[in-house]
């Protein structure tokens, strides 16, 4: 294979057999492995789709408008990420700081939405009619309907298990991404992220965009095609 020199830092030159930076090659290999990770979790969800014996079922619990907003937030964060990379590449330190922080904040907002959604799913209720003899407080007080706990947790049914495993791991990946981005932001604030280190931002960006495309697939396959 051809030998080539890849500049690492000023004055250092690293030999690689591909002419490509080790770190960039490795991040793509990592993302390939992440395809397997999320692909198998999604496959498991799809195998168990419509096979739950008890509810809640997807169509009873999903709030598509709210999830659409969180999807939009994550897509916007990808834009902020590319703008951060463009800024660091042209030596715009201020722009890099602003957009790195914006990406992290948008990621945190997405996590907020996910937390809210998980909480709502867990505490979901359904309205049930009062039948004669039913020992429920509202019915005994004379009401015709009562709210029955009908929450979704990983233990409720197969849908709950596969859904929370898939989206939970995605949320964990977003969390790691936010920590990564905030670390880069702090480095930038301390003047430790010069233009020549733009690869560090590029690598974080590749991870972040991957997390975004996983959500693109989850949103369509799980939420929109879920019922």
């Amino acid at each position, binding site marked *: 294979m051809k030998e080539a*020199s890849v*500049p690492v830092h000023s004055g250092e030159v690293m030999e690689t057999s591909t002419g490509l930076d080790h770190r960039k090659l490795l991040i793509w290999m990592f993302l390939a492995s992440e395809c397997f990770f999320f*692909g198998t979790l999604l496959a*498991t969800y*799809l195998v168990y789709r419509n096979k739950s014996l008890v509810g809640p079922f997807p169509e009873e619990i999903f709030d598509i408008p709210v999830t*659409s907003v969180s999807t939009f937030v994550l897509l916007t964060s*990808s834009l902020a990420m590319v703008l951060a990379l463009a800024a660091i*590449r042209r030596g715009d330190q201020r722009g890099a700081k602003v957009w790195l922080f914006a990406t992290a904040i948008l990621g945190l907002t997405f996590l907020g939405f996910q937390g809210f959604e998980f909480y709502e799913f867990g505490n979901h209720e359904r309205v049930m009619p009062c039948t004669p003899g039913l020992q429920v407080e509202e019915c005994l007080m004379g009401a015709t309907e009562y709210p029955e706990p009908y929450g979704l947790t990983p233990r409720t049914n197969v849908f709950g298990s596969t859904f929370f495993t898939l989206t939970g791991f995605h949320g964990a990946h977003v969390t790691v991404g936010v920590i990564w981005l905030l670390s880069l932001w702090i480095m930038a604030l301390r003047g430790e992220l010069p233009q020549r280190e*733009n690869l560090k931002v590029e690598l974080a*960006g590749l991870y972040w965009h991957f997390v975004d495309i996983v959500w693109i697939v989850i949103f369509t396959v799980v939420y929109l095609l879920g019922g």
Partner: protein
Amino acid sequence: MADVVYFYMDPASPQCYRAKQYLIEKGIPFMELNLAEDPAARETYKELGSPPLPVFDIDGKLVSGLNYQRLDEAWVSFALEKGYLREAPPLDEPVSGGELSDVIALAHPGPATIEYVAIAAVLTMVTLLEVGIFYLESLGSALMPILLSLSSLKFVLVVSFYMHLKYDSRLFLSFFAAALLIVVALAVAGMALFRALV
């Protein structure tokens, strides 16, 4: 010869220092030939006719002097020929030289800022379209292929432009595409096995 820029330089020259920084910023692989310390490099430089420094030798083609645009063009055409790049990148107005902080990140293959924003707008519109289509009950069984096509479009846009795969080495695409193909095949096989394919 390796697939790099052979960079003839004099360490005392500010122009050569700027040239080296530029190569590093651009991520252009280079072999530094220090004429002050390397007698063999001096011999080769003399054979080339001792052109004005810095000198960039890209596969036999010489760029003499610090001209960022000519260097970019020479590197890009070489990289395209060798397959390190798959697309000719859009080139903006040339850099005039000067201090490193004035260097504009042109000729780094990829979309311009306004194009990133345009892609984001497309991603938003497609998402709105998907959600709108979701509420159309009349579509019936056509819903799945339509939604899968739209999300595939978003997937390809993010991977090609935001993740830069359209402009980068084919090796990255190979890893990613191979992994995707294998896992999709696995998913379909699993679903068929458990009678989950509709």
